C-alpha cells in the first residue's frame, strides 16, 4: 500500500498556512511601495526558481534557457499588449503559451544531448533569442527595450493603485498557483516518470517511460509559470529590457535554487525570501553588495551543498529533540504526583549504560517481574498489572530512552533492541533484581527476547 497522507496531515501543513497568512497580511504592515516592490520581486524569484527545480532538480535537465521563458513572457506581453493592442489580460494568458512553444522547440536539441552539452546548447538558445530580440528593434525596442507597456486593470481599477496592492496580491496568487501546480505534479504519475528518468534512464525506459515525451513535458511544464511571471513583470514594471537575458539575473535565480536545495519545491521559496531580503539589507553598499552576496553563495555551496532546505530540516530535527527532552524533564519535575497516582509509586531516574531511565519499583515478593513497554508507549500502560500483582511480586517497569519521561538517547546507539536489553541488564544489576521474569509488550517483547538470548535468564 502506498502511504500518501493528504497535505493537511503532513508536517508541512501548518507552516504553509502560517506563511500564507503572513504573506496575505504583510501589505497592511508595509504600506510603502518600495517594500511592497521587494515583496513582489521575492514572489517573482520564487516562481522562477521553484519551476526551474522541475526541470533541473526533478528532471535532471540542466536547462540554462529557463530565464528565457520569463523573457518570452515579458516580451510577449509587451508586444501583444502594446504593439498589437491585445487586451492586457489576454496578453497575460498568451505569454505562457508562447513560453511553452519555445520549450517544445528547445526540447529538440536537449533530447539529443547529455551532460554539459545540455548546458551549452541551452545557453546558446537563450543567446540566440537575445540576439533576435535585440536585432528586431522595431518591435522590441532593441537594446534599450520597451517602455510604457499597458498596465493591468480590473474594471477600471488599476492594480498599481493604493501602493501597488493589486499587483502584490496578483503575484502572491501566482506563487500559490505555481506551488500547488508543482506539488501536485511531483506526486502525479508524470512526476514519478520524470524522477524515474532522472534516477536511471535505461531502467525507466525498460519500464515503459518514453524519454522523448517525458523530457518534452518536463520542459513545457517548467515554462508555464515563468512565462506568466514574465508577463506579470511586464505589466507591473511597464518596461521590458533585454537585461533579463543577462548572466546577473540568471546567477541570482540559480543561486536561489541551489541555496534553497534542488528537488525540494519549498527550498527555492524560502531561499527567495532569504536572498532577496539579504540583498535589500545590503542595498546601500553598491558594488560591495554583489561581492558579499557572491561570497555568501560560494560559502553556502561549499559548506552545505545540499542547500538551506536540508539544513532547515536538520535544525528542525534538533529542535524536536530539544523540545521533547525539555518536556520530559518538566514532567519529571512537576507531574510526578499524577504518575504516582496511576502507578501507586513514585518513579526515579536510574543510570544505565544508555543514559538515565525513569523507573518504577514497587511491590514485595522474592520474584521480580520487569515490564517493558512497546514502541511509542510508556511505563504507565502497566498500571493495571501493577494494581493486580503488587501483593505477590516485586514489580519493576521503566521508560525506554526517548519514551515517557526518560531523557532522549543518542539516535546512533540507544534506539536499538540490543541497547534495550542492555538497559534491562543494568537495571537488574543496580536494583538487585536477581532472576526476574521479563514481560515485554510489542517492541518490549523484542527487548525481552534479546535479553533472554544473551544468556541472562
Amino acid at each position, binding site marked *: *500500500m*502506498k*502511504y500518501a497522507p493528504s497535505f493537511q496531515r503532513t508536517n508541512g501543513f501548518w507552516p504553509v498556512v502560517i506563511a500564507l497568512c503572513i504573506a496575505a497580511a504583510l501589505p497592511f504592515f508595509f504600506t510603502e511601495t518600495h517594500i511592497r516592490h521587494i515583496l513582489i520581486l521575492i514572489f517573482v524569484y520564487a516562481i522562477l526558481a521553484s519551476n526551474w527545480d522541475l526541470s533541473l532538480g526533478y528532471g535532471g535537465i540542466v536547462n540554462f534557457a529557463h530565464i528565457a521563458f520569463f523573457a518570452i513572457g515579458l516580451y510577449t506581453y509587451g508586444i501583444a499588449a502594446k504593439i498589437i493592442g491585445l487586451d492586457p489580460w489576454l496578453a497575460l494568458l498568451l505569454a505562457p503559451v508562447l513560453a511553452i512553444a519555445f520549450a517544445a522547440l528547445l526540447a529538440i536539441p536537449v533530447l539529443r544531448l547529455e551532460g554539459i552539452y545540455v548546458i551549452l546548447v541551452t545557453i546558446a538558445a537563450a543567446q540566440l533569442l537575445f540576439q533576435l530580440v535585440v536585432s528586431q528593434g522595431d518591435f522590441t525596442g532593441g537594446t534599450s527595450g520597451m517602455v510604457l507597456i499597458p498596465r493591468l486593470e480590473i474594471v477600471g481599477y488599476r492594480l498599481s493603485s493604493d501602493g501597488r496592492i493589486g499587483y502584490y496580491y496578483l503575484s502572491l496568487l501566482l506563487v500559490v498557483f505555481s506551488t500547488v501546480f508543482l506539488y501536485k505534479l511531483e506526486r502525479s*504519475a508524470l512526476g*514519478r*516518470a520524470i*524522477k*524515474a528518468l*532522472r*534516477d*536511471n534512464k*535505461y*531502467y*525507466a*525506459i*525498460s*519500464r*515503459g*517511460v*518514453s*524519454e522523448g515525451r517525458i523530457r518534452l513535458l518536463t520542459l513545457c511544464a517548467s515554462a508555464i509559470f515563468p512565462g506568466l511571471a514574465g508577463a506579470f513583470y511586464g505589466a507591473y514594471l511597464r518596461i521590458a529590457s533585454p537585461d533579463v537575458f543577462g548572466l546577473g539575473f540568471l546567477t541570482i535565480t540559480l543561486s536561489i535554487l541551489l541555496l534553497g536545495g534542488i*528537488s525540494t519545491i519549498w527550498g527555492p521559496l524560502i531561499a527567495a525570501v532569504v536572498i532577496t531580503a539579504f540583498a535589500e539589507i545590503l542595498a546601500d553598499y553598491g558594488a560591495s553588495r554583489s561581492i558579499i552576496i557572491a561570497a555568501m553563495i560560494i560559502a553556502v555551496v561549499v559548506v552545505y551543498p545540499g542547500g538551506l532546505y536540508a539544513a532547515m530540516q536538520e535544525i528542525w530535527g534538533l529542535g524536536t529533540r530539544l523540545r521533547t527532552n525539555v518536556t520530559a524533564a518538566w514532567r519529571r519535575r512537576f507531574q510526578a504526583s499524577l504518575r504516582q497516582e496511576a502507578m501507586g509509586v513514585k518513579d526515579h531516574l536510574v543510570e544505565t549504560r544508555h543514559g538515565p531511565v525513569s523507573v518504577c519499583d514497587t511491590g514485595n515478593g522474592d520474584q521480580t517481574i520487569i515490564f517493558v513497554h512497546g514502541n511509542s508507549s510508556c511505563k504507565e500502560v502497566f498500571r493495571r498489572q501493577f494494581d493486580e500483582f503488587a501483593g505477590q511480586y516485586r514489580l519493576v517497569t521503566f521508560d525506554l530512552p526517548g519514551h515517557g519521561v526518560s531523557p532522549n538517547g543518542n539516535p546512533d546507539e540507544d534506539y536499538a533492541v540490543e541497547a534495550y536489553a542492555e538497559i534491562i541488564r543494568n537495571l537488574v544489576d543496580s536494583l538487585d533484581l536477581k532472576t526476574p521474569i521479563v514481560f515485554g509488550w510489542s517492541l518490549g517483547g523484542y527487548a525481552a527476547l534479546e535479553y533472554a538470548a544473551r544468556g541472562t535468564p
Partner: protein
Amino acid sequence: MTPLLAVRNLTKSFGALVAVNDLSFDVMEGEILGIAGPNGSSKSTLFNLISRIPFGADRGEITFDGERIDGQSDHRIAKLGLIRTFQREAVFQSMSCVDNILVAIEQTSGARGRQAERMADEASELVGFPRNFHNLPAATLPVFYQKQLMMTTAVAQNPKLLLLDEPASSLVESEIGWVRETVSELNAMGMTIMLIEHVLPLLMSVSNRLLVMEQGNIIALGDPAEVTRNPAVVEAYLGQPA
C-alpha cells in the same frame, strides 16, 4: 507451438569486435529458455539488442508476437509486453519502493490511482516482495530486495516475454531458491521467460531448453541435459582437453 519471439540474423559490432554474430533462434510461447555462456559471450548484449535498451542491432530481424519490433522505439517495445531486467540491480533511488512499482504500471497499462496501487500490491504478492517495505526509500534496500523490487516492477508490467539477466547473481543459496520458485511460478501463469544465469543448477532445473553462447555465437541449443553433454559446450567452459 508458435514462436513468441523469432530472431533472424541478428548482428552487432563494437568497432572491430563482432559481439553478436548472425544469430537466429526462436522462443516458443510458454517456455523458459535458459541462456548460458562464459563471461563476455554477449548474453547481456543479446538482451540489449532485443529490447533496444540501450542500443539496437546493426542488422537482423526480430518478430515479437507477430509484429516486427526491430524498427520500433525502445519504450514501445516495453509497452508491447517485452520486458527486461538488468544484470546490475537497478532502482529509482530517490523514490519509495511502491513508487518504483507504480511508475512501471502507470507507464505501461495507463492505470492510475487506487487501481494502480492495487496492481502494485498484486505484483508484490506474486514476486514475494514484502509489502511493508513499500514506503521505504528504494535506495536503502539491501541488494537482495533491490533485485526483488526490480523483478516486481517487471512483473507489474504484465509481460508476455520476460528477459531476466542473472537474477541470482550475488545471492546466497536460500535467495536463489526464491529465484527458482518465482521463475517457475511466473512461467506456470503463462509467462514466457528468457533467463540468463551463471548458476547452472538453477538454470538446469527451470529451463525447458538451454541456449549456450560463446563469443557471440550459439554453440548449442536444445534439451538442457543433452546440451551439457555437448563437447563444444564442455570445451567452452573448461577449455581444450589436454
